[in-house]
């Protein structure tokens, strides 16, 4: 049973436009959510996170929105740049420091010049 779902395996966006990556989860006990960016043959890099007590967190071009009632979060990248092309993983955890991250399967973002 997949607790964290990224239903879009790929997304293509024009440079300068907004990229919206979506993630759904099923476990209402999750209290911390993260987004990772991964280039081929490299380890994932932490991008941005949000606690369940918030509904929005912003860091430069990256904003994460959390809708707890819908069990849905999204990552917005504005404006998108070709260097943003990568696989983006959504992850969730519960239980503070002892909780382990549960990852989605990832969405491959392609930003075209």
């Amino acid at each position, binding site marked *: 049973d997949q607790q964290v779902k*990224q239903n879009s395996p790929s997304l293509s966006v024009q440079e300068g436009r907004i990229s919206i990556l979506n993630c759904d989860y099923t476990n209402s006990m999750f209290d*911390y959510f*993260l987004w*990772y960016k991964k280039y081929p*043959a*490299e*380890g*994932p*890099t*932490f991008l941005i*996170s949000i606690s369940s007590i918030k509904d929005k967190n912003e860091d430069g071009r990256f904003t994460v929105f959390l809708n707890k009632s819908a069990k849905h979060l999204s990552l917005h990248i504005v404006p998108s740049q070709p260097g943003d092309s990568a696989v983006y*993983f959504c*992850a969730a*955890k519960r239980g*503070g*420091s*002892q909780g*382990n*991250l*549960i*990852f*989605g*399967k*990832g969405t491959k973002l392609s930003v075209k010049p």
Partner: protein
Amino acid sequence: SQTIHQWPATLVQPVGSPLSLECTVEGTSNPNLYWYRQAAGRGLQLLFYSVGIGQISSEVPQNLSASRPQDRQFILSSKKLLLSDSGFYLCAWSVTGTGEFFGPGTRLTVL
């Protein structure tokens, strides 16, 4: 600052051969350590995690094992590799209140 090292970067092994992947973390004490695998077309699968020396929890039953002989050293092993063990293996660390920080990964191909 904290850094995490993994080696080797790539590995090609025959079926039935043993495996040893090593991971070390610098710049932090008593981290939680993790081994993940990313197989072709799949997300990141947690294999093992450790909250301290000698403490290993297995998430997925398989022919792999993990050990933590020192605080900042985590080793992934197998006595006999299977074709299905091919994948990209990632070591990660975390401390209280953070998400996981990943190493550069090891690409394992079992032939």
